[in-house]
């Protein structure tokens, strides 16, 4: 065995489960997705190739609701069993089952998904009501053998190029390359995953050669140009404006808030230089991203004028506004929040800052909102690497969306329309929505398209991409 074909990857977050149907969680997905368990389709976000086949060789739409998938043949699971349509059906049923609490159902919203086996290499998948992007959705459903019980597993079996060789809880997880993989044989023979919460330590481990890849280190530790690579991590950082409380119902006030923040000043100081300014809830690589929208300029004078105007109209611009933040959201979230607070204060807002741990933060972030809250700006990150805004817009902007800060029938309608549309029409509708939200509603204070840093040892080649947050395909790692 050639030791130099082994890699060690140091991750920032431990895993508690290795459940294939939970691979949408980034900590699980990074180890499991496409390494152990594969999906029918796969989205190429960076290469621009769009949706690509994986376990399905091709697919076509039967009708509004049903899609037919033609499956790859001669594929074996790591336990030796053959892959066929029954496995796909079981995987879908299992993921949607109410006997376990998989994450998958949430992507399908209210649609009911059923799979019908046509023959061992063909399967029909039906969504009711219909899903315009069903093949894309299939890129999140991991395929497990039909023998997998309907309960959470800690020992995943899949068709991927690797199988799980060992899991020493708290210490490491080891993946071993399979010889009977259907596809191209990746270079990495064995991958050991270790977990270090402290990014500084993770960075140090790559530096000392104890590890080869640290996919997410903090910007302050990214001090070595040779080893460190920045990549957009698909997170958008924004402040939700709570339109339920004075003075935030007033559009002028919301504009003033946006104008008061010197976004550019952050870049290269508190956030990495590679950061871009956000103009939508979704990253630029998403379908229908509206490139015409410019970030809000920094114009404190105009902000002050708007406030004065609002005040003259009797808007309670002096009432307290609380910025709610989440501790450890990203490395220096506290400073960023303080800086924002400072800028808002400078134009005359009365702002407080309150940081919370996850649980309390989530309670505030999602509905139902407490009726006796003060006006709030909730700082949150939203991650959509799935290529389509549908995974974001309903939740953040629909009046029934659990994290939306306002209610606008027009917006509701636009979201519903776009969700049902396909092709270019779909892209156009999303674009329209994004523009409307930014220009007319002034729904939130969009700030940054975040970037992450990976430290990669010089002996391996690996290029982190926007997908690296949620998956890390070992096949993309090479050796020098």
């Amino acid at each position, binding site marked *: 065995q050639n030791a130099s074909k082994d890699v060690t990857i140091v991750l920032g977050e431990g895993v*508690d489960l290795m459940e294939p149907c939970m691979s949408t969680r980034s900590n699980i997905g990074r180890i499991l997705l496409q390494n152990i368990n594969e999906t029918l389709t796969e989205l190429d976000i960076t290469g621009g190739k769009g949706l690509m086949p994986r376990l399905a060789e091709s697919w076509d739409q039967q009708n509004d609701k049903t899609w037919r998938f033609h499956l790859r043949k001669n594929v074996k699971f790591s336990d030796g069993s053959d892959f066929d349509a029954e496995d796909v059906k079981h995987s879908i049923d299992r993921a949607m089952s109410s006997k376990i609490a998989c994450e998958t159902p949430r992507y399908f919203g209210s649609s009911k998904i059923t799979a019908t086996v046509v023959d061992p290499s063909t399967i029909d998948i039906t969504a009711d009501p219909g899903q315009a992007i069903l093949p894309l959705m299939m890129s999140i459903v991991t395929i497990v053998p039909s023998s997998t019980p309907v309960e959470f597993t800690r020992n995943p079996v899949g068709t991927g190029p690797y199988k799980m060789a060992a899991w020493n809880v708290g210490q490491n997880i080891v993946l071993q390359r399979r010889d009977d993989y259907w596809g191209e044989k990746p270079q990495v023979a064995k991958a050991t995953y270790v977990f270090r919460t402290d990014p*500084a330590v993770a960075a140090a481990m790559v530096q000392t050669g104890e590890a080869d890849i640290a996919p997410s280190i903090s910007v302050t530790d990214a001090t070595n140009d040779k080893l460190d690579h920045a990549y957009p991590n698909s997170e958008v950082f924004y402040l939700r404006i709570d339109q339920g409380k004075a003075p935030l119902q007033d559009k002028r006030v919301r504009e003033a808030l946006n104008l008061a923040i010197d976004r550019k000043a952050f870049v290269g100081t508190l956030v990495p230089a590679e950061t871009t300014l956000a103009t939508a809830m979704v990253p630029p690589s998403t379908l229908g991203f509206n490139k015409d929208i410019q970030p809000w300029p920094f114009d404190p004078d105009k902000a002050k004028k708007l406030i004065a105007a609002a005040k003259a109209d009797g808007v309670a611009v002096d009432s307290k506004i609380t910025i709610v933040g989440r501790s450890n959201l990203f490395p220096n979230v506290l400073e960023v929040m303080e800086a924002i607070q400072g800028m808002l204060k400078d134009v005359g807002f009365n702002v407080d800052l309150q940081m919370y*741990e996850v649980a309390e933060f989530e309670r505030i972030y999602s509905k139902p909102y407490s009726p006796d809250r003060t006006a709030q700006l909730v700082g949150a990150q939203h991650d959509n690497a799935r290529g389509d805004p549908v995974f974001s817009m309903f939740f953040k902007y629909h009046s029934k969306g659990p994290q939306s800060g306002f209610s606008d029938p027009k917006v509701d309608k636009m979201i519903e329309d776009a969700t049902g549309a396909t092709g270019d029409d779909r892209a156009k509708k999303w674009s329209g929505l994004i523009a409307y939200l930014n220009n007319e509603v002034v729904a939130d204070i969009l700030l940054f398209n975040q970037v992450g840093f990976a430290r990669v040892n010089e002996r391996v080649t690996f290029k982190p991409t926007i997908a690296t947050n949620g998956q890390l395909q070992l096949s993309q790692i090479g050796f020098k």
Partner: protein
Amino acid sequence: MRKLIFGRVLSSFFSLIALIVMVFFLSRLTGDPAALFLPREATQEMLDNFRRLHGLNDPLIVQFGRYLSDLAHLDFGESLRQARPAIDVVLEGFVWTFQLAVITISLVAFAAIVIGSIAAFRPGGVFDRFTSVVSLIGASAPDFWVAIVAIVVFAVNLAWLPTSGTGTVWHWVLPVAVLFIRPFGLILQVVRGSMIQSFGSLYVKTARAKGVGNLSIIFVHTLRNAMLPVITVIGDQAAAMLNGAVVIETIFGFPGVGKLMIDSILQRDFNVVLAAIMVTALAIFIMNILIDLAYAILDPRVRT
């Protein structure tokens, strides 16, 4: 003596029950695990489903009854996050924590007692001032700071030791060393103070009149008299370590129970929290019983 131990075990059992009751009900006041386990975008259906699966819909008292009856069968319940028995999860971590605590506290106790006693022999002397200052700087320096500097110096720059993780003996050196510092400073000061007081006693004069050497006066005659507060503080520090050395565990990637407990609390994985508390509480109770026995062994006048 046997009666004493029996009584202590019995009353400790009641404390354990009280602890369980308290933790069970209080922790459930702190929010809903479903909201944390499931993604933000989860549908109401998913939430309901999750609650049903984990019996979170029943009235608290019913849940508690179920918990107790399971507990009677030594079933500590399942971990929400890890989908396996909570007690397994906890014991895995506890083994590490226990080793770390025992090793560190033994070293600390030994070093602090020896150095503190010698320092107390000449209060205000050079040795005393030096050890005090050094240990106090260590004890009041932020531990993560010490840990990271230690990694940078000893693992990255000098490459003497691995940065973190487990595996070899060398992996233990930095965590133990960093963990050592704070209790060392505290116990050193307590030893020192207690010893100074004891050196003033008349029996020290007797020992000197007998021709007993300084070392023996310090470590045999005086130390035992000064030990009561010392072992109490050692016990306190040991208890803190048994509860988990969180900073050490997070920084050094050490799979102990401290980080597990914190994560479980933040994620509302109640079964793991309860199991972890029970295991550590048991260890702490046993340790406290040993400490109380140690009082009686160290000082015959306390045996009543």
